[in-house]
């Protein structure tokens, strides 16, 4: 059973704006899928639904065989906390916490023992190459460092699914390439990755491409 399934999903905002229209998509474990399309086509909305921070108006979103519409807020929260990692378009690092604390957040929320948090945080920061900036605040980091921090935070708790919204959109080509390498490596480890992007070059690094237009899947 694929860890991510969206079946005939529609999403309507404030009663009349149709952001998603009968979308069906699945992502297998170990698969890196690129979600392509122009601004406003519904990519972020689809990511929000798959990331369990929003619910469909109709249709089903199944995360590891659990229909999100039937889950309580607490159950959705636990699903996000334990099984999903999200890389936001604008990094969304908490400005008052250091990079290290930002990365550690998912483990802290899982109430992991302090020693384990410290150890795994250093490991994952080493992995993405930002351990030298551990004590810096987000405002003191470059765009590339912030994005790698966001990736570290998305994978530190070893989620089954990683959702990335324009992960290279705010980066130069060098940093963008590094990020794509890291995403590919994650897929190689068996995680299901969905990456929303404008960039054809980024999409070429994905195993499968899904195009969207006006809230629908084209291919």
């Amino acid at each position: 059973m694929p860890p991510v399934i969206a079946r005939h999903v529609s999403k309507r905002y404030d009663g009349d704006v149709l952001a998603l229209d009968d979308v069906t998509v699945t992502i297998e474990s170990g698969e890196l899928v690129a979600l392509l399309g122009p601004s406003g086509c519904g990519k972020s909305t689809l990511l929000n639904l798959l990331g369990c921070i929003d619910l469909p108006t109709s249709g089903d979103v199944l995360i590891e065989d659990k229909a999100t519409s039937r889950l309580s807020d607490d159950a959705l929260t636990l699903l996000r906390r334990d099984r999903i990692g999200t890389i936001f378009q604008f990094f969304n690092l908490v400005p008052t916490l250091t990079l290290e604390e930002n990365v550690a957040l998912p483990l802290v929320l899982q109430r992991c023992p302090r020693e384990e948090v410290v150890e795994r945080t250093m490991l994952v920061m080493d992995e993405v190459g930002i351990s030298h900036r551990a004590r810096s605040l987000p405002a003191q980091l470059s765009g590339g460092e912030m994005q790698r921090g966001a990736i570290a935070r998305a994978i530190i708790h070893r989620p089954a699914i990683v959702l990335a919204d324009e992960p290279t959109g705010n980066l130069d080509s060098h940093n963008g390439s590094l990020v794509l390498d890291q995403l590919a490596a994650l897929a190689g480890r068996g995680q299901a990755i969905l990456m929303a992007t404008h960039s054809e070059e980024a999409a070429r690094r994905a195993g499968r491409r899904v195009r969207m237009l006006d809230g629908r899947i084209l291919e």
Partner: protein
Amino acid sequence: MILLRALVGGYLRSNALRAAITFVAITLGVALAFAIDVANDTAIASFSQSVDLVANHVNLQVTGSGRGFDEHALLRVQSSPGVLSASPIIEGELAVGVRSADFQSGELLHVLGVDITRQVLPAAISTTAGSFDVGQFINGNGIIVSDRVAREYRLRSGSVLQGFAGARSVRLYVAHVIPPGAQADSSVAFADIATAQQVFSRVGRLDRIDCIVQSSKLRSVAAALKRVLPADARVIEPRVRTAELQSLLRSFQLNLTALAYVALLVATYLIYNAVAISVVQRRAEIGTLRALGARRADIFRVFLIEGLLFGLAGSFAGLLLGALLAQFSVAAVSQTVSTLFAGTHADAAVYRPSSALVAFAAGVVLAALSAVAPALQAAGTAPARMMRSSALFEQRATGGTRIVTLAGIALLAAAAVAARLPPVRGLPVFGYVAAVAAIGGASLLTPALFALFLRPLAYTAAIAGTATELAVRAMTASRGRFAVAIASLMVAVAMMVAIAVMVGSFRATVVAWANQTLGADLYIGTPGASDASYQGYFRASDVARLARVRGVAAIDTYRGFSIPLLGHIVQLGSTDFDPATLPRKMRFIGRVDLRSLIAAMNAGDNVIVSDPFVNRFGLRPGDRLTVPTPSGIRSFRILAQYNDYSTSEGTFIISRPTFERLFADDTVDAIAVYAQPGMRLAQLRSQLLRAAAPLRITVTTNRELRAYVVQIFNRTFAITSALYVISIAIAVLGVVSTLTALVLERRTEIALLRYLGLRRAQVRGMIFVQAGVVGLVAGIAGVILGMILALLLIDVINLQSFGWLIETRWPWVFFLEAIGLVVVAALVAALVPSNIAATIKTAEALRAE
């Protein structure tokens, strides 16, 4: 902990000004509440010291009223089985420090005549009993005074203390000075029992006997003593008398405390707004944390803790500030208690841990409660919506306006119902409930009222110019937030308006009453600062001598004292019922045939009762009243009810002949003189002063006495004015906080507008327009709510607390002034935020975005 740091720590640092304002608001609110509590505690402590002065092991007291009881009772008490010790006591007032140019100057010492050879010694002198000449104290007209009195009048052991016991000049010798801190009320002095009897013309009489009895036989001894004592003597445990004194002050203190806590209530609006604003400003972080797996409960807890932290820090600082403010509040409250109830002189504030705990807990709990709504909002919003835009979030925050409005209407309806309910054990509990419901209801209606106001404003703003239009648009977008600032200011204004209406109406009613009932030309009293106690210093022979003075057409007398009745302390008064003077000194409620009333009052056991008496006991004309007198228990018929604003204790009055017959007391406290037509008052005054010799009397004209009444009135309400000024200050801080937050939040938007060509002056104008609108809406709503609260204060709370009938008067010009004042205050509050807005660095703000 990391969530707290993520959402609160850094945020508070970068919003230090607003955090400081919220902290100061809570500090002021708690400080005020604590200062008033301390003042009340101090008043109670010094007020009840006359009860507790003797050693702690006194467990039974025999007390009399008026001129006390025959001293032979002491022998009967001493010889009763079970009585281990009995100490006689005489109480009297000695005026000291009186200047000849101003006979109302100086102060009254509360002199306790004690027998220090007895086993039971007053606590204040027992510790130093061996350090002074007891023989000199007993046989040489000795007096023991406090350190404060000694310093104030430059006395030491052996000095002569010159004073007035009523109208009689008295010389006493200072036998000893009590060291500082040994007593709560430094105006208490001690004399030997025989000296006190002599000085206060009470030879052969006692006011009180303090007993130590076997505690296991307390009840049986009390019952046995009652059988051998006169009917008007009471045998009670000291705590009963303390409770009676406390109940006397209860309503006065409760009202003062309620007013003090309004300031804290205003401060809680600030916390609500502070936390609500911080929720909006941190919505992105909240959304991120929720998306990462933070639960609703985690987010809720963080914002609740933020409110709690404000509460804890503000309350702690509030206690410190309150302890300082107490120095002023103790003096103000002590003076009012002294004027209205009985003479006290509180030297040192009494800090009770329980009062500190209550004020601290009130600050913390209210702070936490005010954070609940925004914390729920933060926890309840879906993460996706949180992360989208502030406008959407605001929309949701103000989306529940209809429910809020309905809840507001329901609360106002509840207030109307509560206002009609009777008092609970003499306290206007439902009156307070109605006031709180009215404040809550009006606060919940504020968003709807503001929205109503914004609609026409939007049309006119388009004509008024860009700055106004932008200001109105911003207010429309953030109307929920503005509504809270308006509500807090509205509550403070309402409090000011309500108190102003109540005090103004009360003053007008009292002045009208004084004009009608102070109908004599001259009033004779005794030297020294007056208080609410009556000592009966004029004898019948003095009155007769003054009545014979040439130019005196008629003379009227009054004698009164406190007596315990129906579990409370009330005033018993006696006066002349004369057709020539009665209409000039009393105003009756309802139709009263004066001729038949006078005849009935002079003929037998009949009484008239004051408004507060009727309110307190529910006894009305036609009912009967049973009173213990030295001649036995008597039943009186209530014939009429009269207006009285001199005391809230409740007074019943019997005729002079009846009083003399039943109480064997021919003394008089005050004398009113009616001049013959054409007589010059200055001349009559001189003649009266001469005729009174060797008595030293004061003669006050009608006009002077009325002015004195107003002066006492104003002094009584001085502290309430201080309370509402502080509430207004707290609310204005709220406006500063809200406007600053909105400016900081709209930093980018303002920068963009500046980039596109909006001038600095226009940016400032935008903020001033918002402040002006906030002030105007709060002013109008505050006046309306204030009128509702005034009606509750006058017709429910005051009536149920004190029984005073007040004719409501609406000061329309003052209402306009109040609205103007609030608008000006709001504009002043806008100075800081408008400056912040005008100096935003355009490039920096846009780059940050």
